[in-house]
Every structure is written in structure tokens, then in C-alpha cells.
């Protein structure tokens, strides 16, 4: 008889406000990651800036091709050729104990991508929960051995101690009978349990930031609810910041404190989750929110849509990337200049000429 995983106690989770959270631990500024190929240059990430504060949940939302995955992989320095970070900085400040000054402050964008420094930070300070739990574990080694390996890479300890720690982490994420599952192979686990094992592995070194790339896309809705609840509980207990990517606005509303809306490699708008949902300022955010049917909205009516489709990555429109599909585009402005991200003091910066008249300094390039 299979033991069922324990579902963490049902609790509601309040949205945290940025003002209580202290200095950002991760500041991405003007990040540009381009892929130079024979056919042309794909500007996958083209000037992205956002902050992550300690203990905050930041949700990055956007459609396919908006550069959300590339942005997160750039932070972890996992971009492979022909991709390259061509500009910008990724400032990481490792928090000191008990709110002391940061004990480490460095720009991840300048580190050699295969160097010792970044390998310590990746997995140790910033851990990744990948999208495909099946593809993330080696099928030839038990999940326990793989977690022990990850622990011992970052923290020199005996195999026996690492094993104890790994089992404790498996128990913490609600894995039933963790001692037995420690010896299981990934293909012996169901999708939900595999996702739990991945989360246990990511948590094993007590990272300051958890980076999750579509953590619930590949799993069913009832399992998704369990994983989301687990992430909330773990986040409260560990105080790690979480940066996650999704295209599901329901997941954003349920998990995120702060939302970054991306389109074609640029941030369109960002702000606290309530403001983004109730008073979206960018036409793209507005359209995105309106075009999604919900179980609560009226059935069988025409949905408002965004005209056209996402442009081919090699043929980016000039000016604001959204202007060909934008209902409010202003000819002569939006198709010529690139709007800069401007915060007018509302805490909800937006890159749109409807709200300000500041263009990007190096536009037209």
C-alpha cells in the first residue's frame, strides 16, 4: 500500500509588500543576451532590469519567445553558445547573518561561466528548479545519490551526513517514505513525486534564491496545486526568495508578490501583484489579462484578443516591440523610439509612451 504524501497544512498566504523586505539581493540591470547566428542576431533578452528582495516571490510572466527563460538562465550563467551576455549587470548580494551587511557582493555577468566562483553560487546560493523533472535527473543514478552529490559539491561533509541531510530534505518536501525513495530512480517516481525530489535537491544547500522555470507546467492540475502549496510553505519556512517563470496568470496571482511582464525580450511593466492585476498600465498587460478565459468568467462569449501573432525573433519590429499589435499605438512615436522603463513613483514602472515620454538612450541601434 502506497503511503500518500502529506499535504502541507492548508493556509492562506498574504502578499508581501516590498517595503518590509530590505535591500535587494539580486539586481539585474540592462541585461542583454543575444544569440548571434548565421541568419542574424536573435535579441532574446534585450535590456531587462528587475530586483529580487530577500524572501520575496517574483513572478515573470510572458508568452513563448519573450525571453523569460533566457533571462533566468543568464542569471545562472547557463547560456550556451551561440548565446552571449552582451551588456548589463547581474548584481548578487549574499545576505549576511541576522541582517548584517552583505558578506559578498559581485556581478555575476562578469564571472567566467565555467569558473569556480559561479559554480559555487549556482546550486549553492541560487538554485534552479527546472521545468522538466524527467529530463533533470539522470536515469542511471538514484535520486538520493544525485542529491548527495549536489550537497557535497557545495559543502564538504561525509557521505553519511550528506545522506542524512538528503533524507531530511526529501521528508521536508512531503516525499512519502523518504528512506526508500532515496534509493529510487527518477523513472520509478510519478510526476508529482519527481517534482518534489527536484525541489528537495534545489533546497539541499539552503539557497538564498530559488529560480523556477515553469515549475508546474508539466504536471496535472491537482498535483500543481500541491506543488504550489509546497513552494509557499517552504518559502515561508526558509525565507528564500523565489523567482519563477510562468505563462499561467492563475499561478502568478496565487504565488507572486511582485510581477514582471515581459514581451519580446523586454520588460513591459512590473509592480506589486495587486497593482498588475487590478490596475495594469501597459496595453500588453491589460490585453493579456483580458484574453484569458477563467472558470469565473462568462462562458461562450467572444474573448477580447490581441491582434496578430508574436513576431519572428529575427524580425523584431522597430520601436516598442508591442506596437504592431497594440490598440493604442501612436504612429510616429511607438514605431520609431523604444520606450524606457520609467517609475513615476507609483512603484509600478512601465515602458510605454502612453505614460511618459522617455525613450531608451541607445534606441535606433
Amino acid at each position, binding site marked *: 500500500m*502506497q503511503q*500518500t504524501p502529506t*499535504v502541507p497544512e*492548508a493556509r*492562506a*498566504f*498574504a*502578499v508581501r509588500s516590498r517595503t518590509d523586505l530590505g535591500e535587494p539581493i539580486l539586481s539585474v540591470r540592462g541585461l542583454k543576451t543575444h544569440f548571434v547566428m548565421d541568419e542574424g542576431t536573435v535579441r532574446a533578452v534585450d535590456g531587462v532590469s528587475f530586483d529580487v528582495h530577500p524572501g520575496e516571490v517574483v513572478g515573470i510572466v510572458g*508568452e*513563448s519567445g519573450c525571453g523569460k527563460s533566457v533571462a533566468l538562465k543568464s542569471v545562472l550563467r547557463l547560456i550556451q553558445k551561440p548565446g552571449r551576455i552582451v551588456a548589463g549587470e547581474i548584481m548578487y548580494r549574499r545576505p549576511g547573518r541576522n541582517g548584517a551587511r552583505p558578506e559578498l557582493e559581485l556581478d555575476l555577468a562578469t564571472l567566467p561561466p565555467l569558473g569556480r566562483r559561479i559554480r559555487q553560487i549556482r546550486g549553492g546560493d541560487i538554485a534552479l528548479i527546472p521545468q522538466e523533472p524527467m529530463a533533470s535527473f539522470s536515469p542511471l543514478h538514484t535520486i538520493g545519490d544525485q542529491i548527495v552529490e549536489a550537497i557535497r559539491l557545495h559543502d564538504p561533509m561525509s557521505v553519511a551526513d550528506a545522506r542524512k541531510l538528503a533524507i531530511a530534505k526529501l521528508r521536508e518536501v512531503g516525499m512519502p517514505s523518504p528512506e526508500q525513495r532515496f534509493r529510487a530512480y527518477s523513472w520509478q517516481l*510519478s510526476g*508529482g513525486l519527481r517534482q518534489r525530489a527536484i525541489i528537495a535537491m534545489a533546497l539541499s544547500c539552503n539557497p538564498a534564491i530559488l529560480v523556477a522555470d515553469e515549475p508546474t507546467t508539466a504536471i*496535472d*492540475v*491537482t*498535483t*500543481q*496545486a*500541491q*506543488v*504550489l*502549496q509546497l513552494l509557499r510553505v517552504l518559502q515561508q519556512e526558509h525565507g528564500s526568495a523565489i523567482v519563477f517563470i510562468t*505563462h499561467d*496568470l*492563475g499561478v*502568478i*496571482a*496565487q504565488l*507572486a508578490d511582485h510581477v514582471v511582464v515581459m514581451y519580446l525580450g523586454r520588460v513591459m511593466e512590473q509592480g506589486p501583484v*495587486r497593482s498588475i*492585476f*487590478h*490596475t*495594469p498600465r501597459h496595453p500588453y498587460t*491589460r490585453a*493579456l*489579462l*483580458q*484574453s*484569458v*478565459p*477563467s*472558470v*469565473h*468568467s*462568462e*462562458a*461562450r*462569449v*467572444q*474573448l*477580447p*484578443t*490581441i*491582434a*496578430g*501573432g*508574436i513576431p*519572428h525573433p529575427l*524580425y523584431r519590429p522597430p520601436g516598442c516591440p508591442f506596437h504592431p499589435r497594440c490598440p493604442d499605438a501612436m504612429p510616429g512615436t511607438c514605431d520609431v523610439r523604444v520606450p524606457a522603463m520609467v517609475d513615476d513613483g507609483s512603484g509600478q514602472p512601465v515602458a510605454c509612451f502612453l505614460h511618459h515620454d522617455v525613450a531608451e538612450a541607445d534606441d535606433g541601434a
Partner: protein
Amino acid sequence: MAPETTPLPAARPIARSADATGVDESRAPLLEVRNLRKHFPIKGGFLQRTVGLVKAVDDVSFKVFDGEILSLVGESGCGKTTTARCVIRAIDPTSGEVLFRRADGDVVDVAKLRDKQLRPIWRDMQMIFQDPFGSLNPRKNLLDIIGEPMFVQGVRSRQKRMDRVAELLNLVGLRPEYMHRYPHAFSGGQRQRIVIARALTLEPRLVIADEAVSALDVSVQAQILNLLLDLQRRLELSYLFVAHDLSIVKHISHRVAVMYVGKVVELARTDALFTRPKHPYTSALLAAVPVPDPDQRAALQGLPGEVANPAAPPPGCYFHPRCPFAVEVCKHEPPPLREVEPDHFVACHRAEELTLDGIGELESALRPRPDVPGATPEAPPPAPPDVPTPPSREVPS
């Protein structure tokens, strides 16, 4: 440069839910599936003998009426796609009947037809697939792709095919000039329009859509949903709509069948199913959908345990190991699908005694209201008259 999408030619605005009136149930059903079963053998041992059966579809029955959209919904592995494939005879069912009313009024059992007899049936029954990248031949242009069903059915005149393809491209919102282009020139949403055009070439009466919008981006998903609804009304089609996303199912369907481990556990009109579910599994599915409103951060309730193994399902009700309401009888007796209210079928021993949660009345107050800066959601507007008010909610006087 990717070609542009032309807007639909003056689409009639879709009126609000025609659920009660749009479907004609007085006539015989267009499709009636009776006791459909599909069992896949598990081979093993030295002689590759059959050592077990995966009961992917296990005694499924439902009807689809003219002009109706029936959704099959459930988690992965519940048998919804296998059911759809058996209906169109992409695979042969193990047993059961698939009764289809032909245009001349004759009812044929598609499950029993021989391969040669199927071809005329496929004029009336077409399928839309999930992946618009995998379902179009990259070496054929749109004329050949969309015109192929006509060719197969014996239309040899190229001019006739070109005329029809141009008409179809217009219908799905693409320019007729595109008919000489190849699929690689089109985006995901446009490809799905091409797939839909191909399915409509022979003027089918039943379209089977298997996760037709799941692979699309949200902004494109809305366009395709609108197109599907608009075509359904204009051409008076019926859909058998297979999906896992409850929001989309709620949006598009007249009636919904919820499947769990090869069986239909609940079948009802969309509004009734979403507001007053009678099966604990349906209620759990609804509770697991993340609400797109940061002010409604409820504890998300997942279901404990795993989906039962269809090769070795538990005795009694397949859902009982995960069911919070299971009692002794659930462990031994498989519950039959029975009508507990008019048009509301449930396979649960305790359907009458349980009061289960459906979705709350959240409504359109969730929608952003950019015209009122800083607006907070107010009390929901009174329910539209054609949507039955759930009994749990107090009606403001």
C-alpha cells in the same frame, strides 16, 4: 516576415450563453457512444503472452447533439484522448457502440464498420490535433494540405479545390493568397487555423478537437477559441472537445464529461457541473485551479495520493483511495453512472448526501478596470438571468 492574420470577416458577435436554447435535443443525437471500451494488452514473459490489460477506456457512454459542444476533461492518463480516437476510429475500440447519425438520417455504428466503409463517415467527422507543428506536412503547401481531403474523396479538379481552399482560408481568418505557401512560414496560431481549415474542408458535422488550443500562447489561444466558437455557430457544427484546462472547458462547452481512470465520473451541463458538482473528484479538480486574483489567495487544495494505475485499479470506486468522503461501500462496489438530477449524471454512491463546493461566484469583477485607477473589486454584479444562481449564494433582494 511572417504573414499577417486578417481579421475575421465581420463575425457575428457571439451572443451570451445560448446553453439552454442553442442545442436541439429533441432530435436523435448526432453521436451516441454506448459502453465504449478500449483495453490495451500488456505483453510479457518469454512468449510475449498477454499478462494484463490497461483499461484506458472502460465503459464510457455519452451523447452529442446537433450544434452541441461536449467536453471530455480529466487529468493525463484518464482516457479522454483514447475515447476521442475510438470515436473517429483512429484506433479500434475493444467493444461498445459508436452510433453516428449520417446526413441522410441513417444511424451507423462506427465501431463496427470495415476500413473501406469508414471513408464516407470521415466526410462527416473530422479531427483537430493538439500540435500544429507536428500535424502539417512541411513539404506540402496550404493548397495541398487543405485540399487533400477533397482529393481523397474524389474531387480531381484543381480549380474546384483552389476555390474551396480560398473560401476556407477566408473562413478561418487567413488570406487566400497564402495557399501557395508552406507551413514553415506560419506561426503557431496561424498553423492551428490551417489545421482547422483542413478539418472543415468536407463540411463535417462533428469535429473532434483534441487539446486544440493547449499548445498555443495565451494571446493566440483566445483568438482560436473565438474562431472555434464562431465557426460552430455559423456552420452549426458539433464538437467533441478534449481538454485538460478547466477554464477553457468552462468557456466553450455546453456539457462536460469528467473522466477518471477510463470512466466517466460526472456528466452534466457546464453551469451545473461547475457550480454544483456532485462528484468529489470534480470538486477537487475545481478547487485545484489557481484563481487569477491576488486578493483571493486561498489555500490551494491538491488531492492526496496518485491517479490509480489503469492496469491495476483499486476495487470498488477507482477514486476511493483519494476521496475524503469514502465509506465502506466505496471500497467494494463500483458506483454506476446514474442520473441524480435531470441531465446530471454522477458515478458516486454518496451523490445525494454530499454537498460539494463548486467555483465561487467571482465573476468579471476580476477583470482589470483600467478606466478607474486604483479600483478595487466591488460586490459582483447580479448574475445574468440565463445563468442559474447557485443555491448557496444569497440573492440580493
